[in-house]
């Protein structure tokens, strides 16, 4: 019958346009790394000598919280959803830790409380999306309001106790070993490996892809969607909390709106990394590279002396361009 009579592409034969396109589609990480390489070369051209290991260290350090939040988005987007509450949860978490500094238990107690609060938030979101079938955009949007409001209330309650960012957290979030390797990698690397493992090697990961690709087929094969979604949003919230800790440590700021400006970039990183917002397609390696690409672009633009404004314009344009390229390439058949 009518079948794709493609050669499997082993070995390097003549790279036709079609071959490039299937490369892009099946292994998007390669062109992504290529893009990163180009950006680094351009950075070096603009400011010769800037691309050093120190520079790389700073980039990675800044990318870590973003990459974690983008991981939350990747997981949610694979199911065809999105998590707009990650910013509020992350901010809340960092903030809660800071308020515990002078309280009994100190900041470790703060971490436990924050994680617990994130867990509850994730549960509520998961129940809303999984059981009540509320659209994830709305549910997470609503939760971001709820969390923000409650965090503000917490602020008023705890304002007398005073607080601040604990030095241990500052060290974790902003210090670098040998001035190069950020200590936050101690937290990030296991987390990233966990996410990669989940997505590639576990039945649960397959369920994420299945629900995003075709929820009806998943259901008919025996998948209980609400279970998958519940676990998803709980995980997302807890990862967001961890990102919040690191972000607070990095910026030395504890505020309930700290991470607000990272929500959209987290979605952007996932999109650039090749995860489709319609679900069923994508992965975390691309997302991580996407996060680094966004940081490199940021750095490139500031070394070019371009104001924040131009950075934003270029950010947006690049996202559209990359997403358009992905769409063109993946809808070819």
């Amino acid at each position: 019958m009518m079948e794709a009579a493609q050669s499997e592409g082993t070995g390097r034969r003549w790279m036709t346009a079609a071959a490039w396109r299937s490369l892009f589609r099946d292994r998007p990480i390669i062109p992504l790394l290529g893009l990163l390489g180009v950006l680094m070369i351009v950075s070096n051209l603009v400011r010769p000598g800037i691309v050093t290991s120190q520079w790389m260290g700073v980039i990675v350090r800044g990318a870590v919280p973003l990459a974690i939040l983008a991981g939350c988005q990747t997981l949610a987007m694979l199911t065809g959803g999105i998590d707009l509450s990650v910013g509020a949860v992350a901010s809340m978490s960092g903030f809660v830790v800071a308020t515990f500094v002078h309280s009994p238990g100190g900041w470790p107690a703060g971490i436990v409380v924050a994680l617990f609060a994130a867990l509850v938030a994730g549960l509520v979101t998961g129940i809303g999306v999984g059981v009540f079938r509320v659209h994830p955009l709305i549910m997470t949007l609503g939760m971001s309001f709820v969390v923000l409001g409650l965090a503000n209330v917490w602020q008023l309650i705890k304002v007398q106790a005073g607080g601040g960012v604990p030095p241990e957290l500052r060290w974790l979030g902003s210090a670098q070993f040998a001035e190069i390797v950020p200590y936050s990698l101690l937290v990030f690397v296991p987390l990233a490996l966990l996410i990669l493992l989940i997505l590639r090697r576990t039945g649960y990961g397959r369920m994420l892809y299945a629900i995003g690709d075709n929820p009806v087929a998943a259901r008919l094969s025996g998948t209980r969607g609400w279970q998958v979604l519940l676990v998803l949003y709980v995980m997302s919230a807890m990862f967001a909390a961890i990102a919040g800790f690191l972000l607070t440590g990095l910026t030395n700021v504890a505020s309930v709106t700290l991470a607000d400006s990272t929500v959209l970039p987290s979605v952007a990183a996932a999109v650039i990394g090749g995860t489709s917002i319609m679900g069923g397609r994508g992965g975390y390696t691309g997302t991580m590279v996407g996060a680094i690409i966004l940081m490199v672009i940021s750095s490139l633009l500031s070394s070019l002396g371009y104001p924040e404004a131009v950075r934003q314009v270029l950010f947006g344009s690049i996202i559209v361009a990359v997403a358009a390229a992905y769409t063109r390439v993946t809808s070819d058949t």
Partner: protein
Amino acid sequence: MTVTATGLLLEATGISKAYGAVVALRSASLAVRPGEVHALMGANGAGKSTLVKILTGAVLPDSGQITIRGNTRRVHSPDEARRSGLVSVYQEPALIPDLDIRSNLRLTQTPIEPFRHWLSELGIADLDLSMAARRTPLATLRIIDLARALAIEPDVLMLDEMTAALPANLTERVLEVIGRRRGGDRSVIFISHRMIEIGAVCDRATVLREGETVGVVDVNAGSEERIVELMLGDVGQGLPARDQRRESGGGRSAEATPRLTARSLAAGTKLQDVSFELGVSEVLGVVALEGQGQDELFDVLAGSERAHSGELLVDGRPVSFHHPADAIRAGLVYVAADRAEALLMQRSVRENIALPYLADVRRWALIDLRGEQRTVDEAVATLQIDARAGREVRRLSGGNQQKVTIARWVAGGVRTLLCFDPTRGIDIRTKQQIYVLLRELAQAGAAVLLYTSDLKEIQLVCDRAIVIFGGRVVSEIDAANADETALLRAAYNLRADARMPEQAAAATVVAAAAEPPGGAPVGGPGSAQPEPER
């Protein structure tokens, strides 16, 4: 009105279309004369739907040209097609669900009076135009669609499976109306697989196979066989002969507990009261016209819908399903007709096959990759799936896709298989492979419930068949007696000697054609050669 030099109203030549490496159309052609009703036929995968999309402007061809009324057109959208004189009526009514009928008509600028005229011709006299399209029954929507098309008097009217979802009385009217257009100066392209209807209203038939036009046949008494021959190609009669049926005298053994017992199941609005027994190693066929409750029956058995009365027993023990997972645990697995419903199109063959296994919460941890690969490879081999394009299931052909949906259950061992029209729209070779597989599964101890709209399959695959009409079982027929005619009669709930509505409709149309409006085409039953216009 202008006609081409060759006297054709519509002419498509050399149409080809490829999607990447998949060739949907190689070189298709279609020639429609003024005043004729022209059938377009071909199995799914033959390129019929692609040709339809090209004619209606939904898709641009890679090569070839389309000439309407002598003008070569490049048609980019249904709107442009309409302006060129070609109007299509699709299988899914092109009505906006959230608008009422009047707004829908306004949207397409349909003139109301002619619309109402055609509506009553087609058998719907009093339609409340302020009804929301969403709340209007499907059959009515299809008639509305047709009346809309007729109201603007198109040169060429293309009907895609027009009678598919219609009850018998509306089918009769539709065929009548179509038949009356013969001999005029406008034409109809009639896409259908119902031979009786084609015999009743069509003048000629173009047959597609594997992306090419393989023949144009004058429709008359003996043409059905010729048409089937053309559709099947060199596979010959294709279908395995009766003696190839299972030797081990099938059917249930009287003593053993039946695998599945249904007692007075009722669900939804259409399933009223169905009872039957399905034994181990048995293949039980289900036959029914559209919408008699068979959809609901299978949904209940598969666990995706709840029965509101009746009971279900598996191996003699009562069960109650709240979710497909419950059914699967009880051993009931479901193969759907609509592959889009059953497959993860963007995922690989492997992920699709492994899906039910991993769906269980207890398997959410690390996957045994090697074990999985082995199981998947076995399933692929058993079903002879051609998985060269296996990275994304959507790139497989329809037949291979269907095999994947079956493979996912075979991989885990099948106890009870519920097949809902599994061979719909699939090429002959794959159909045969599926028949053989079903019988082998039964022989190995599975119980199979098979609903099919292709009545020939019953005798080939099943041990016996139950016929459902009006949500109830009206007949149970042994395979030996389950020939197509008997099944069809039972499906219409008729006495053995009564005439079926399809035949009655056909006869009416033929009779009408025999009456002269002007020059009389003299025809035998079911045929009419269009006389040249004066």
